[in-house]
């Protein structure tokens, strides 16, 4: 898996509520299947990954959270900006005692909570480091998946290093910022967008695709989450929407099923059918808009009972089946 694809850094974004964390976790499971080692990174401090995999809260440490099908490990990391800053200072500057002094006078707090922008620099920097980390000749991780900020902020988040490069004319910060942008703008990176077949998420997805293309950051797949099969035939859907379903026939059916005693059931069912038909019509229109974005599209099924661990594996299998359309 992933071997034939040049992509090593998968950034997963989506409007809030579309299932971005779920999709990122399912993608990590899929990429790890068959013996690969994948790191799943959380940047927003929500501990959503720990909840999904049903493990204790993640510290700032790469921890194995799941075993993929056919062998393969998913590691997870919740990046803490403060720790990432210390690590960065140690790694590149060997600051030692000065690091403590920086903390004491408030530089660390300034950088990680007060000053806008710096946080994103640290978070993207850490993802960059993990993606490129090697042990001897080998990459430590075959792929890195980032559960990134939502679509409304994704351009700002991924492009922060270009801003920094514009500010620092030379020196180590400039070099670091240029290297990160180099990775983010290369075919080794893909930004996947998760959406629902609803107007606002699809609109935001389209906006984000435009923005990323403008920024020269490669867009990967559009993951359409929570898709449903229509429960009714095309004709039935049309009838339902126009209130023309055969009430007499449904009533006879309810009688045959021993449900005729429930007053109001017939009307309720017809109304539910109508809402369903409206929903299907809306989804069909939104699906066409998603297709028009001209990116590979993969659909994930709606899980009636919500996403638990078993559901997560189901979704990861589905991402695997899409491999012919989406070379992850």
């Amino acid at each position: 898996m992933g071997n034939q694809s040049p992509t090593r850094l998968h950034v997963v974004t989506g409007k809030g509520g579309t299932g971005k964390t779920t999709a990122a976790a399912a993608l990590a499971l899929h990429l790890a299947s068959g013996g690969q080692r994948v790191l799943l990174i959380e940047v927003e401090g929500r501990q959503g990954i720990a909840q999904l995999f049903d493990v204790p809260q993640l510290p700032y440490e790469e921890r194995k959270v799941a075993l993929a099908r056919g062998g393969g490990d998913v590691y997870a990391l919740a990046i803490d900006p403060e720790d990432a800053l210390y690590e960065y200072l140690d790694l590149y500057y060997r600051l030692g005692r000065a690091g403590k002094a920086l903390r004491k006078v408030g530089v660390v707090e300034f950088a990680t909570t007060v000053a806008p922008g710096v946080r994103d620099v640290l978070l993207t920097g850490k993802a960059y480091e993990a993606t490129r980390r090697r042990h001897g000749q080998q990459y430590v991780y075959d792929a890195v998946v980032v559960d990134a900020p939502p679509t409304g902020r994704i351009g700002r988040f991924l492009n922060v290093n270009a801003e920094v490069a514009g500010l620092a004319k030379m020196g180590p910060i400039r070099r670091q910022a240029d290297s990160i942008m180099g990775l983010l703008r290369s075919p080794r990176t893909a930004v996947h967008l998760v959406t629902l077949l609803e107007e606002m998420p699809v609109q935001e997805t389209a906006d984000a695709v435009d923005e990323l293309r403008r920024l020269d950051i490669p867009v990967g797949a559009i993951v359409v989450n929570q898709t449903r099969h229509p429960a009714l035939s095309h004709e039935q859907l049309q009838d339902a929407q126009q209130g023309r379903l055969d009430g007499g026939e449904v009533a006879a059916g309810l009688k045959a099923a021993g449900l005729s005693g429930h007053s109001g059931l017939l009307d309720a069912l017809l109304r539910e059918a109508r809402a369903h038909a409206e929903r299907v019509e809306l989804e069909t229109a939104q699906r066409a808009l998603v297709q028009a974005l001209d990116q590979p599209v993969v659909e994930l099924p709606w899980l009636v009972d919500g996403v638990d661990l078993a559901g997560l594996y189901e979704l990861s299998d589905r991402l695997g089946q899409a491999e012919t359309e989406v070379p992850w």
Partner: protein
Amino acid sequence: MTDPTLDVDALLHDPGTTIIVCCGAGGVGKTTTAASLGVRAAQRGRRACVLTIDPARRLAQSLGLEELDNTPRPIDSVGRDGGALFAMMLDMKRTFDEIVQQHGDPARAAQILENPLYQSLSSSFAGTQEYMAMEKLGQLHREAIETGEWDLVIVDTPPSRSALDFLDAPDRLGSFLDGRFVRILLAPAKAGGKAYMKVFGGAFTLVTSSLNKVLGAQLLNDLQTLVAGLDSVFGGFRERAERTYALLQDPGTAFLVVAAPEPDALREASFFVERLQQDAMPLAGLVLNRVHTTEAADVSGARAEGAAEELDELDEHALTSALLRLHADTMRVRDRERHVLTRFTGAHPDVAVVSAPALPGDVHDVHGLEQMGAALAGSVAVLD
């Protein structure tokens, strides 16, 4: 168990209510909720101003917010009984620019505005929005008192990693301004830090040399220039942010935590509720959006599923069977939603709840907002 129900109309009618803050996780409908409350308030005699941070395009269009001009615009033909609706979208850069222009002389202001670091800070960096949302909210409230143009400000919170980040804005800025780092940044470079050595001891040299090493001389210099330039601006900004923070604790403010009936969104909602209580912020209640309802709740999912199977075995009434399966799905979703809500109300039994039903499509016109407002006002208990 019955959750206490929030009386939305009473809240909107009460002239004492001057600020409503809608907060919650991303994608739960904060902006739509804020806008629908604005419409309802305006139709019931209030003069409401909706400040939205990052609205979806069609909703913005429906409110006439096609251009960002950072001032509230009246939305015609919504208000009734002397009510009116205004709406604006936060322009973070313009808000920041205005703060700079209003404090300090024009030459100095121009210098700041041209600083490349300032330009990134005011337009591109995440985190600035929280500070500016606080500033704008305070401004709109002051204007309400001064001009009487509106008497109720409804705001949705920035889509930040934690939707209550803006509450921390005054504190964060304060800790920076009171801290030692700002004095190091403001230390005149030419003094060689001698005077500062006395105050900070060896830390001063250590810190400046480390900063030099990491940031480089040019970036450090830009940062020092910017902080020195903004020095006069910070004080006033901080003072206003602290006043706005205090205003948020005032009984005239009502916080509404918005959530969808999903585990993630309600977990965040719990977190907001606790945080608001901890900060002594007046929490009015929980708005539960997109709740799946049915008029045939007495026929359980299992029952409907079983009946559908029976019909399939008879190989008759395929339409009825399909409708029953649809109902079974609706019931399963409904049951799951009620289950997660029960967990929330169990942990927060005193928090009043209102709900709005899941609609097949999005809300993106005044009529849709009216309907949502009516649903919130006429909401019955979800758990009964």
